Structure formats: structure tokens, C-alpha cells
């Protein structure tokens, strides 16, 4: 029982992290129609920024804030410098570009920060709490993670569904030319989309790193699972990202604990395939098919 509870709790925390990453992908997809494979190394870089500050003696929260901020800036810069030139070109160009960026950021980080393991602090305790004599794997930091992800999700839903800004961002993504004609500053919207997505990505980087180890590749497995989570939920729905993330985190945690950790990737594939066979647009897709 204790194992079950702890595996589940671990799965939820892990899932929350996938969800955070999936939210970032979701945000960038909804605002630019691009899947950003460089999301993970971008988040990794900003986590290192926080780490450098913390090592310099600043508090965790200063590092946290600066990391988010630098994520915002990094996202904007990447959009302006790297992505803007391929706007309107075939999808694959942007994909390859972000893959290239992935590699570049990765090796740049290894050169600048070194490739050894470093530990990253967490703002809240890392000890599980005791409930009636048995201790369960619910740490204050885990709670923080879940709350942070839920908050981001709600904010994103609000942004996209109820604000003019969200509407403009989506319009820019789907119909840049038409949006322009209607007075939307498309360029700004795309930059903003990347910036916000990188901010959410940075958050996920910080959440994964908190109370654990970082090195230049520490986000790599999240690239796959975060993406799988986003696709699982449906790339157009923030709620889908979160549900997909938590679902995936839970399932993988149980597979890992009860079957064997070597089957984790295979189960991720199996889950994804089953879901996509039933719903090719992910769990939360709601666009009715009209093809002709």
C-alpha cells in the first residue's frame, strides 16, 4: 500500500513536470504552429543561469526569478534571430532549425558550464511528510511543483480563451496574413509566444532540477516524455497537456516500479499509440473534421 501510494505520488510529481514542459510546447504550438525541440536545452540554460546566481550566494528565489526572466528574453531572441527567417516556410524547416539549436545550446552549455553533475537546490523541504506513522512521498517541493503547474495551466486557459491578446496570438499563428490585415502585430505576437513559452519551459526546467542533479543533458528525457505528453493531450489544449503529462507520469511511474524501468520508453510508445489510434488529434482535440 505504501509503495502504491508513493509510486503514485512520485508519478504525479513527475507528471506535473512533464505537464509543465508540455504546456510550454503547447503554448508555442498555439502561438506559432511550431514544435520547439530546443525547448529543453533552452530551459537547461536558464536553469544554469539560476545555478550560477545561487552559487554566487543569491537566494533561491532570486535565481528562480532571473531564470524565468532570462527564459523570456532567450525565447524572444531565438524567435527574432532564428525562427523569424523561416516563418511561412515548410514546417520541417523550423523543426530542423530547432533541432540544430538543440545541439548548439547543448554543446555550448557543456563548454561554458562543464558537463559534470551539479546539485540544484529546492526552495521547500525535500522530506516526505508523515501520515499516521507511515511516511509518504509528498514533499513540500512536490506540492509546490503541482501548484505551479496548475496555476500556469489556468493562466494559459484564461489567456487563450478570454483575452484579446490570446486571440491575437492564435490568429497570428493560424493566419498571419489575415491577422496582419486586421491590425494584429503578428511579429510581436510570435515573439511574445516564444518568450512566454520559453518562460514556462524555464519553469519546468527549474521544477525538474529542484532537489536533484543538473548537467547539460538533464532535460533530455523530458524532451521525449514532455512531447509525448503534449501530443497525448492534444497540442491545442492546455488542459490536455496537463492531463497528458500526469497520465504519462503516473503510468510510467507504475511501469517503472512494478514491471521494470527498461520498459518505460516502450510503455510510453504503447500508451501514445493506443490514444492516437482512438483519437488521432490527442485526448482533448475538439476540432470537428471537415475536409472538403
Amino acid at each position: 500500500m505504501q509503495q502504491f501510494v508513493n509510486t503514485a505520488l512520485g508519478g504525479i510529481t513527475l507528471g506535473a513536470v512533464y505537464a509543465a514542459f508540455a504546456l510550454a510546447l503547447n503554448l508555442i504550438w498555439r502561438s506559432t504552429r511550431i514544435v520547439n525541440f530546443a525547448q529543453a536545452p533552452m530551459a537547461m540554460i536558464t536553469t544554469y543561469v539560476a545555478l550560477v546566481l545561487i552559487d554566487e550566494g543569491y537566494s533561491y528565489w532570486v535565481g528562480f526569478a532571473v531564470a524565468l526572466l532570462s527564459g523570456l528574453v532567450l525565447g524572444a531572441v531565438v524567435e527574432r534571430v532564428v525562427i523569424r527567417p523561416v516563418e511561412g516556410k515548410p514546417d520541417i524547416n523550423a523543426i530542423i532549425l530547432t533541432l540544430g539549436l538543440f545541439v548548439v545550446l547543448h554543446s555550448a552549455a557543456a563548454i561554458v558550464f562543464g558537463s559534470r553533475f551539479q546539485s540544484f537546490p529546492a526552495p521547500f523541504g525535500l522530506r516526505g511528510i508523515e501520515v499516521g506513522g507511515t511516511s509518504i512521498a509528498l514533499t513540500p517541493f512536490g506540492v509546490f511543483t503541482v501548484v505551479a503547474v496548475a496555476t500556469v495551466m489556468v493562466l494559459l486557459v484564461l489567456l487563450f480563451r478570454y483575452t484579446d491578446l490570446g486571440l491575437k496570438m492564435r490568429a497570428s499563428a493560424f493566419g498571419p496574413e489575415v491577422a496582419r490585415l486586421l491590425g494584429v502585430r503578428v511579429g510581436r505576437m510570435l515573439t511574445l509566444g516564444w518568450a512566454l513559452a520559453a518562460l514556462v519551459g524555464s519553469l519546468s526546467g527549474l521544477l525538474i532540477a529542484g532537489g536533484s542533479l543538473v548537467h547539460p543533458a538533464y532535460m533530455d528525457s523530458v524532451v521525449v516524455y514532455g512531447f509525448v505528453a503534449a501530443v497525448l493531450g492534444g497540442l491545442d489544449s492546455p488542459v490536455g497537456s496537463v492531463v497528458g503529462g500526469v497520465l504519462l507520469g503516473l503510468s510510467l511511474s507504475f511501469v517503472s516500479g512494478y514491471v521494470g524501468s527498461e520498459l518505460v520508453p516502450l510503455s510510453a510508445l504503447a500508451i501514445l499509440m493506443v490514444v492516437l489510434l482512438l483519437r488521432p488529434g490527442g485526448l482533448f482535440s475538439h476540432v470537428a473534421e471537415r475536409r472538403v
Partner: protein
Amino acid sequence: ACGAGESRDDDDSGGGSAVGITDDSIKIGAHFPLTGVAAPGYSEIPSGHQAYYDYVNANGGVNGRKIEFVVKDDAYDPTKTSSVTNELVLEDEIFGMVSGLGTPTHSAVVDFLNSEEVPDLFVSSGSLMWGDDPEARPWTFGWQPDYEIEGKIIGQWVKENMPDAKVGLFLQDDDFGEDGEAGVRQYIDDQIVDVQRYTPGNTDVGPQIAALQASKVDLVLGFNVPSYTALSQLVAMKLNFTPKWFYSNVGSDPALVGSLLARFSEGSVKDDASLLDGVLSTEYIPGVDAPDDPWMKLWQQVWDEYGEGGKLTNYRVYGMSEAYTFVQALQAAGDDPTRESVVEALEQVGGDFEGPGMAPFRYSEDSHLGISGMSVVELKGGKADPLTPVLVTDIGDAEITEDDSAAGDVPPDNGIPDEEPAS
């Protein structure tokens, strides 16, 4: 970069091949994961080698020959290992491979090296493959104690000292965990109540540790790498899981793991002591936690003078220790070493080398396995505290005996070995 074809020696017959060696130089190579997921830690080993060779070269080299050490990155990918080894052997024309790292990676090239008759010395891995069958792989030598004898030594210790403990295994899911498990099971098969494996790269070991906790084990034996020591400790903290921990030598590295965990012990852990206090492990060469050891003094001096900067870590110490053995082998091969003579010399006198290893090498015509034993230690205040004398054994059902004969070796004054030619 062409012309490799012409300069290849034509006569394989006669006094042995002298590829990669001239009157004033010898070129050796190695493959290491300098990039990718395995790079953290392991990429530091070659810098240890390099520092020690620089030191030797600055002091006149070996018989007047400067050692040139060529390192290639394989990113822990056997495909790349294969291609960089081709490059080292065919293009750079190295004399021998020294300390290529990793089991799957080195497996990809071991047959090639043997068929090309390239000395393949001191593979940086504890797999049995590097030395248990000299007939099949006559050119390959191991260096560190293999995982099986470590398992045996740990198993025996547990059997004698904690006979009632319920034991759980925490294993890396490859030959490391497998060989270790085989060794341990020779002694405490009946005590083991749970086995959990983690896949390298998957950093979420929560489910595994939760399973161990659920099995109510009193002692966890970990055959894992240092980062997973830190991760398992962190998860255990999260779960309030407090068994006795026993990590194999590979994973214990108290300096590294301690520094990784230090950050978390600052605020979140109430008692001030290091998280690693009381953890058991083994030791076969002195490490950075023992700065007063004469070998460590030598390494520190070499590193300060010739290192590429940064702290001296146990990975670098490991590299220097291997390098030391290589210099010994070269000296033992005589004034004009050939590929054959190095191998012969190792078989003949390698077992008598004095070096940082606490137990002797097992090198002979029948075995190319490396260091033969270790002692069990307990970590206290970031230092390893020996609990046993050096325990020596061999693979299979060889007995475990106490043998402190090699533990007292001290480095020569100039820090460079002085082996007699073997023949």
C-alpha cells in the same frame, strides 16, 4: 591525412611490430565519452592520464620516449567507438589502446583490436571480458577489480557482519549490476529479498526505492554510478527510508557524492552531518578523501603542475593511476618495446607491479584481469574508514583471503616508476 596506406609496416614477421613508436616517442590512444549523457564524470578520466604523461614527459619520458596520448570522443555510442578506434589504429597508427572506457563501447572494438594485434591495455570498466579469457583476447588487459570479485567481497562481508539483514539490491541494468549481483549471490543468496534495476539515463528512481522500502530491506547494496548514489539518497530522504547503504566502489566516490548532496543537507536536513555518514563501500586505490596518502600527495602534485585546471577528482586520480601502470608496462617491455613485448612483459611481471592499487594485479599468462581485491570501508565525515584489511580473490569460486602486501606500496621519490625490463 592520407598516406596511411604507404607508411604501414610491411613486415609483420620478425621481431614484432613497432607501429606507433619511434626512438623518442610513443603514441597511444583511447576512447572516452567526452560528450553526451555519460560525459559527466567520465570525461575527466583522460585529463588525469594526460597530466601524468605530461609529468613523465617533462621528466625525460620513458627511456627517452615521450608519451603522446590521443583521446577520441565516442559519446558512449559503440558505433562511434568503432569509428574512432578505426581512426586511432588505422589513421593515427597508435601503438596501443590504453584505458578505452565502457563495456558496450569497448566490446565493439575488442575483437578488432585483437585481430589487428593492437595492445588493448587497462580497459576502464570492470567487466570480466577484459581478461578472463586471454586465449580469446590475448591483447586485452583489464585494470580495475572486476565487478564480480567486488560482489563476492561485499557478499562475504555482509554474510559475516550482518547475517540477519534483509538485503535489497539496487542495480544498474547492465553487466555492472549483473556481474555484481552474481558475486554477491555467491554468499548471501538467501538474504536477498528484492532486486531493483534502474536504466541509466532515467533519473527517476523513485519507484525503485519505493519498492525497496516496501520490501522492508535493512541493507541496500548498490551497484550504480555516483550520480545514482546521490539520486537514491535523495529519494530515500523523500521517502524517509533509512536502511544501511552499501555502494560498490564505482558509485561511492565520497567526495563527489558528498559535494552533490551537500547542498541538500544545508537547509532541508536537520542534523548537520553529511548525508553519507555510515554508508559502506569498498576501496582499491586511495582517493581524494585521503589527501595524506603518499599516492594522493603525488597525484596532487602532478595535477597542480600539469593538470588542465579544475579540482583534482577521483576520476582524475583513476586516470593517473592507470597511467602509472601503463608507464610501468612500458618500462617492463625493455628499451625497444614492441606491441608484443609489452603484452609479454605484462604477463610475466605485471603481477608484481607496485602501484597505487591496494591489491596486486592478477596479470599472468592465464589471466589478464586487473587488481585482485579491495577493502571494505565505512564513510565518516567524508572520509573512507577501513573496516577490513585488503581482501583478495579471483573470479569463480576462488576463496577470499586477506592480503595487505600491496597496500603499503609507496610511490618512488620522483613519482615515476622504475620497472626492470622483463627479459
